[in-house]
């Protein structure tokens, strides 16, 4: 099994059971989600029962147990973004992509996640697409943005 990546992670974090969350953070960063076989390994190496590893993985929002899409759209649902109309475009983009928050489109292109605040409230509503922040978002602007990404990946797949 490919434990090499995990071994690298454990080298920096250490193998104490109190490092469980930090280890899962790194695993998530490496794989984009928490693969089950890796979690089994984590359980063995940190000597934390597997059920506890899963409990922690389920409890914290930062972790996902399912693979995520190629593009990750994070929509801020914090108070400041809410009063400036975030719910309107969240529903709209979910409708456009045909998924629910936390889900990935069938073609594996987009995952939409929500977050409670990104700390950029003065610029709200804020969304983050693949790490890039977009401020003063509206339903119309977001629609166009998603379409742009869709077209881009269409073109790229045609080129190949």
């Amino acid at each position, binding site marked *: 099994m490919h434990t090499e990546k995990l071994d690298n992670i454990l080298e920096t974090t250490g193998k*104490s*059971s*109190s*490092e*469980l*969350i*930090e280890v*899962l*953070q790194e695993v998530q960063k490496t794989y984009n989600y928490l693969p089950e076989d890796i979690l089994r390994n984590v359980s063995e190496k940190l000597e*934390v029962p597997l059920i*506890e590893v899963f*409990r*922690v993985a389920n*409890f*914290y*929002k*930062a*972790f996902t147990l399912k693979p995520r899409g190629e593009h990750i759209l994070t929509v801020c*649902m*914090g*108070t*400041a*973004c*809410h*009063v*400036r*109309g975030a719910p*309107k*475009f969240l*529903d*709209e983009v979910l*409708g*456009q992509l045909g998924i629910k928050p936390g889900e990935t489109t069938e073609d594996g292109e987009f995952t939409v996640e929500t*977050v*409670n*605040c*990104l*700390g*950029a*409230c*003065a*610029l*709200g509503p*804020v969304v983050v697409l693949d790490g890039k*922040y977009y*401020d003063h978002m*509206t*339903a*119309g602007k977001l*629609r166009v943005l998603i379409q742009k990404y869709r077209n881009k990946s269409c073109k790229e797949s045609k080129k190949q």
Partner: protein
Amino acid sequence: MNTITSMKSLKELSERTKKDNQKYSKIVTLCAGTGCQASGCSSIITSLHEELKHKGLTEKIKIRTTGCHGFCEQGPLMVIEPENIFYSFVKPKDIPEIVSETLSKDKIIERLLYTDATSGKKITYERDISFYKSQNRTVLEQNKLIDPCNINDYIAQGGYSALVKVLTKMSPEEIIQEIKESGLRGRGGGGFPTGKKWEYCRNAEGSPKYVICNADEGDPGAYMDRSVLEGNPHAVIEGMLIGAFAIGAKHGYIYVRNEYPLAVKHSKIAIQQAEELGLLGKNIFGTNFSFDIKIVRGGGAFICGESTALMASLEGKVGEPRPKDIHTTDKGFNDLPSNLNNVETWANVPFIIKNGASWFASKGTAKSKGTKIFALTGQIKNTGLIEVPMGTSLRKIIYDIGGGSATGKRIKAVQTGGPSGGCLPEELFDLPVDFEALAEAGSMVGSGGMVVMDESTCMVDVAKYFLKFLLDESCGKCVPCRVGLSRMLEIIDDITKGKGTEEKMELLKETAETVSIASLCALGKTAPNPILSTIKYFQSEYEAHIKDKRCPAGVCRELIHYSIDEDKCTGCGSCLKACPHGAISGEKKKSYRIDDDQCEKCGICKEVCKFNAITIS
């Protein structure tokens, strides 16, 4: 690098840094906080570096990248010293002009100046901007003077001199006495007296002891802690060092919210730099006091901001609160005495030690001392971070600093204290913002979120928003919170859909009171605040939803209809093209119509119509 072992060597380093800065004829301060990064400051910083190099000005002009200045809405922003010229919304293409005109010839570029939101006048200097002028900044003030990744900048501002003072001149008891006399109360929401907490922890049995910094900042719509930790991490570290020395703690933790990568990065760099100078680690300042700090990232759970849940999370466990009959100052992290304070609380400590308890106590009200940082957001002209003395009125904050309504619509409420707080109506805007006054009115200071709402906000929807948030974030350990909140949400949800009844309103209030009494932790205990305060102050909005099946603010989707005003519609057809649901029909140059059955109420048509012809009823 040499370690610092005396006040003299600290002063020397400070003087050297100041002298280095005097070599430059100008210092350009560029904000590189999360907000300004979101609006694209990185490319500006690169362009400026390149342009200065290209023009051979790197010896004359210094670039200082700093943390958040608080006026993120105007970002990316730039301040040119010593003149104090303030440029907002700077773009990479402006850089050559800034270098050739302002930096080389002292010429002001009109177009980049800030326009006062109220008077419409252009303002040249940062100090004249009303958003800044009406504040009283201490902690936040340093942000623009310091490159958070350069410890020398902090030292040049008098940084670490408070640490040296306590290590050389004060006993732990004297420090605790000083903090007590200052009247400092926790900035994380509870408002517990900081000196008292330290004393409990100092007197507790068990070792080693821990000091912990709460940087989980769960309040959605607030970012004070982010900006302090990101922009001035050494102030937090110095505060923790002083606390650790007073309490007798050996190890420290900073528990940072997962969504704040820049704060994590900057505090890691700061810790490393402090260690290199011998200000953190073993035998600090050549004494036998040793203390280390570790950064731990949270996992994105609001409840982990609660003290006992946070400590469970630090241990690598699920973040569930436990009953607090045993205080965390006795048995906290790893069952050992642990002292938890908020980011802003820690950052205030060095200032109190440096300037004295009476300096701090001279600001604020009888029971709430000092200044407090608030995140002013929502439908207001000037949004951003503000620092004002405790006791400043809501009106002054909203109108003098915030500049009033952004939309021209009447401001009707302000939400303070986040999900545990409440909504206060305009009639109460003369209330002084302090721990007692806001609690009496049914809200709270909380950690400092302040969301301003105008007539386009539906208060029932806001109440629903917070309930949903809290239900989502409830850890589920105790029944009143888990089940109670879910029943309350059902009732509120019905109201927003026009299916509410008067009887259900009574049930809602009753359930709210039960949840408040019977829940284990403060999440559940304070959860009814947003509901009860909106019912108390905005009864008529609830009635409109229940009796008239109407949402006065035009927010609750089941109760509103989009239509096109024939008189205003020019027949341009933009809405037809934009509507993603095929709900609009009509002919070009004639009037268009919306089919109510097809309309999903997304509001896109309203966004694109240039003639304001789309109406909501």
